[in-house]
């Protein structure tokens, strides 16, 4: 029942409540920072992801019918302990969030048969969803092998297994609503990659906080097969061999993943459908 139980399945007015179950305007959607951050006197700050917490909504219903108040209170009571349900943010594209009310106010009657109530809805990690977030052009972020400070973020088996290189071809990719990469007028992206000659068992791993991902690997005649593991479970074996060098492509897309800290591991398979076995990791695009 949980994920499929939607607090506000429709955007508008419903006759059963004589009201719209959607919260009133001015509600807040926030995402608390999940980073640890330390900064010396000089130089940049050092940061590390430590938590998998998600979005927090501060919702309010003002001047609503008793049926609406009852509905909100029921969702609080039903899922208060050990449960979760779905909330849809209709005015922001209808994106769904899975979570629960972690606090609720006392309802107050402000006029004849009209009540006010407010509640805090917190997204819970690891919960399955009916519709996972899918707006890759606006909500996803690109995590490249190096930080903008040129510090390696991609974890590899050992320092000698994967080496840093650059890719001559960059894909055209829309991030934050803007075209980036090699397209005309596009905003440039980093061309740094980590590459492995295809030694079977050599792995590279990126751990991230978010939902699904797109894995960007280079393809061409020199490239081979890679085993892709998600949270230590083999998801798929992708073949990066192609007739022509196309640069990094979204070799694997796995959208339907709940919010959590996930690990995507690419392990060189050592085999190929063509002539080369090299595996080159450009970026991981992560849904937030």
């Amino acid at each position: 029942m949980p994920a499929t139980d939607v607090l506000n399945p429709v955007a508008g007015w419903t006759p059963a409540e004589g009201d719209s179950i959607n919260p009133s305007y001015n509600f807040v959607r926030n995402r608390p920072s999940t980073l640890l951050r330390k900064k010396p006197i000089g130089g940049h700050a050092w940061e590390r992801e430590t938590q998998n917490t998600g979005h927090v909504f501060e919702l309010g219903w003002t001047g609503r019918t008793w049926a609406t108040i009852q509905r909100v209170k029921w969702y609080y009571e039903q899922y208060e302990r050990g449960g979760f349900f779905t909330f849809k943010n209709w005015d922001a594209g209808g994106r769904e969030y899975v979570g629960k009310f972690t606090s609720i106010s006392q309802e107050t009657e402000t006029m004849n048969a009209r009540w006010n109530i407010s509640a805090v809805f917190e997204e819970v990690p690891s919960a399955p969803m009916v519709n996972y977030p899918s707006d890759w052009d606006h909500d996803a972020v690109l995590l490249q092998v190096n930080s903008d400070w040129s510090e390696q973020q991609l974890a590899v088996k050992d320092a000698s297994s994967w080496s840093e290189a650059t890719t001559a071809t960059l894909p055209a990719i829309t991030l934050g609503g803007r075209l980036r990469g090699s397209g005309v007028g596009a905003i440039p992206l980093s061309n740094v990659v980590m590459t492995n000659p295809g030694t079977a068992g050599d792995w590279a791993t990126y751990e991230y906080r978010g939902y699904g991902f797109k894995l960007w690997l280079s393809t061409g005649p020199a490239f081979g097969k890679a085993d892709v593991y998600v949270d230590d479970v083999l998801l798929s074996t992708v073949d990066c061999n192609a007739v022509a060098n196309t640069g990094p492509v979204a070799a694997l897309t796995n959208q339907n993943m709940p919010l959590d800290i996930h690990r995507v591991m690419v392990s060189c398979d050592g085999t190929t459908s063509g002539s080369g076995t090299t595996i080159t990791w450009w970026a991981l695009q992560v849904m937030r």
Partner: protein
Amino acid sequence: MIALPNALKAIGGAHSGIDPAHLLDVLDVNGNAYYWSDRPVNAPTVLSPYLIPSTPGYPLPVAAVLGPGQYVAWAFPTQAEGEGDFHTSIHGSNCSGSCDQFFDGPFTAKNRFRLFNFQPSTLPLGAIVDSCHLVSNYSCTNTASNDFGVTAPGAGIAITPTGLPGVASSYQAWLQNTVSSGEISIFFGIDRENFTIYSTGLCVIYHLPGSAAVVGGGGGSNPLNVTPGYGPYKPWILAVPKITFNRSLQTDIGQFILQNLSGDVLSRDFERIMRRSALEGAFFVYRLWDPSANAAWLEMHGTFSVDAFGVDTVTLKGSQLLNPAQDDTPNEIFCENCQNQWGRARCGATGTTECQYSFQTCQVVEHFRGFLNSYETNYGEAIANVATRPTNRRRKI
């Protein structure tokens, strides 16, 4: 007293507008060197890493002396072939230099074997190779000194650097620059009666641009035009202790707090440091460094003990080298009883009856280790030899 450098005298304290930087050079017990600061600083280092072979028991090149900021990488052959009387084999596909090349009888002509397909370590991006040394573990029966050795180039046994898959570009550049003929010829073995090579490797010494090897003694000079602010010192220090320099045996102790967040998404940098080394007992040099003078106001030498690894910080407790609390001294006290154990070497007694550890019962009085509390009191009386005329010692200035 150590005189301050003239540059510091010229600047004076706290007049330059540049706050002094905190520099920490650390040499752990395994010989790894780390350079930390509280801001990006391109200052000369004062500690250098030891030369560490990557293969246990591997002979070290005598000529390889590391300067500041220099590092070592190794390359090993994976294939060998012999001519004439040589019998060669390489152990495995990645043999770490282990091989058998032996000769069973006197050489009557030049015999050659080739070591090739070297598998080098991956050098860091941008590494510049400074020198390279061939290292070999061998034995032979003839002890003449002039017909076997390491030289290049020449005839005899050759190491051919061909077929280098996956070699870092700077490594290839080194080989090409050094080997004009395509071979490094190292060994002569004309008159040997018996000759065995156990292992062979190339010791590569390199540095990274911006390290002290480039900057030399002048932090601030930038001969290679490296990116400013990215010297050997990583800005990891969050806090340094207040150090009170005592003129007694009191030990200066303080806590250095460093960030524990950097690294890749799986491992923090400090995890790696602790995996491959031990900071407990590591030697450190702390300097309060004035960048505008390229000199240090204060310098402290000591050893570390690891206080705590926090979720985002590491605390290292630094104690100055002079630390009497760490001295191993006999557990003896200053009292009337002898502190020697009867009959042991320090006592020297050879009898059969144990003493009572008093001076009166001591059997070897010249070894008595106690305090004598009986004083002679029958000194003769005499007039004290003291001045009887008052002297005015005030001076007019």
